[in-house]
């Protein structure tokens, strides 16, 4: 038997009842004593994170003190609104649908995005769909450089490496979506004297999978300390509808379906979870590898990727910096 300690995937298991009580008590304290707000606005996407946050807020504050907000736009999957409504109905909570497409058209979000795509795919236009994807970063030493995948109206797809200008143009334009959503959330927060709940899990919060002043903005973030697999545990405990628990995590930002894996993490989320845990707890790559179903070199690459993402994320988390403390 090897004397080297090997990590099990069970290290991430939590006691969901106890964790729920802890979060619920914190939400009450934050709203009542720190923020002095009367309830919470939760933008619900039909994904598991925002659904869990809605369930936690309802438990903490009462269903009459939460507002569930849906903000679909032209590229949103119809599933998102359907599943979001399922959350509000399960909770018996008030909900509002705000289609943000007109705001986005006003900001020329789609137009600017398409102009940027045309820098590398000149024929891109009406009837085309697109998404941006990363290469496999686990099996070789590569940069996290995006390509755009376009699908023509007759279904042909092609993948082209983005230039810096095209990449930045696409991201800058699509970031209007998250910022428009946040603007609507704060409209209702101002109207009702509520606080805005942020819905990132630990992977997203730590690795910068959010838009600064978009979905990164919120008054409190009640599940930012939880690994994704722990969010799943809470979802099952809280009774989040099963279809939402089974749904593949998606960005729901691009017109072609795009998994979070291909957009950001390069790895199934359960594996990414374990790697982040390993990195946070100083576990050597060799000891973590069996539990993550990866080899030692792959885990080392993921550790390196986590570190470089953290450098980029520093800017995303930073508030306005001052010349001197006041």
């Amino acid at each position, binding site marked *: 038997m090897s004397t080297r300690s090997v990590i099990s995937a069970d290290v991430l298991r939590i006691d969901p009842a106890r964790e729920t009580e802890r979060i619920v008590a914190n939400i009450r304290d934050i709203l009542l004593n720190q923020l002095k707000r009367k309830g919470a606005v939760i933008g619900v996407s039909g994904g598991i994170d925002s659904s869990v946050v809605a369930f936690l807020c309802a438990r903490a504050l009462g269903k009459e003190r939460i507002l569930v907000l849906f903000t679909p736009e032209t590229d949103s999957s119809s599933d998102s609104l359907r599943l979001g409504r399922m959350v509000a109905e399960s909770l018996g909570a008030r909900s509002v649908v705000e289609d943000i497409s007109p705001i986005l058209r006003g900001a020329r979000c789609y137009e600017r995005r398409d102009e940027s795509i045309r820098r590398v795919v000149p024929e891109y236009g009406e009837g085309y769909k697109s998404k941006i994807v990363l290469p496999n970063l686990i099996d*070789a*030493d*590569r*940069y996290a*450089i995006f390509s755009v995948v376009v699908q023509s109206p007759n279904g042909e797809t092609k993948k082209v*490496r*983005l*230039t*810096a200008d095209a990449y930045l143009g696409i991201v800058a334009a699509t970031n209007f979506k998250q910022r428009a959503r946040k603007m609507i959330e704060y409209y209702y927060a101002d109207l009702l004297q509520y606080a805005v709940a942020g819905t990132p899990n630990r992977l997203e919060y730590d690795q910068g999978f959010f838009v600064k002043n978009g979905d990164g903005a919120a008054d409190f973030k009640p599940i930012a300390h939880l690994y994704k697999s722990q969010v799943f545990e809470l979802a099952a405990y809280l009774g989040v509808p099963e279809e939402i628990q089974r749904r593949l995590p998606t960005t729901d930002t691009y017109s072609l379906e795009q998994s979070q894996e291909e957009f950001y993490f390069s790895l199934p989320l359960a594996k990414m979870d374990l790697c982040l845990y390993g990195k946070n707890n100083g576990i050597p790559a060799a000891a973590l590898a069996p539990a993550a179903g990866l080899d030692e070199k792959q885990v080392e690459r993921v550790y390196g990727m986590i570190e470089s993402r953290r*450098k980029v994320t520093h800017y995303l988390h930073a508030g306005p910096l001052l010349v001197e403390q006041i």
Partner: protein
Amino acid sequence: MQTGTIAQQVRGFIVENFLLGQDTGFNDRDSFLEGGIIDSTGVLQLVAYLEETYGITVEDEEVTPENMDSLNNVSAYLCRKLNITAEASAPGIRESVSGGNV
């Protein structure tokens, strides 16, 4: 074209584009990523600069840390690339680069 000249030109580009024109005196061997000098978007900008300045096409599989992650790596990559395509790319080479801090 000498390796030293290429390294100087690329340093000039990096200083102008990523370091607000302030040469921090980073070493030719220093990793751009580890030193926080260039992130992956920056690598795309570096690739565009190399293609435009030296008249080469950087293939997807060539965009690797081995080729791009330090001045030495970039110089070595460019030398290999220019030798391979020396005749075709030589007329496209520009001696001047943006910025003057080299």
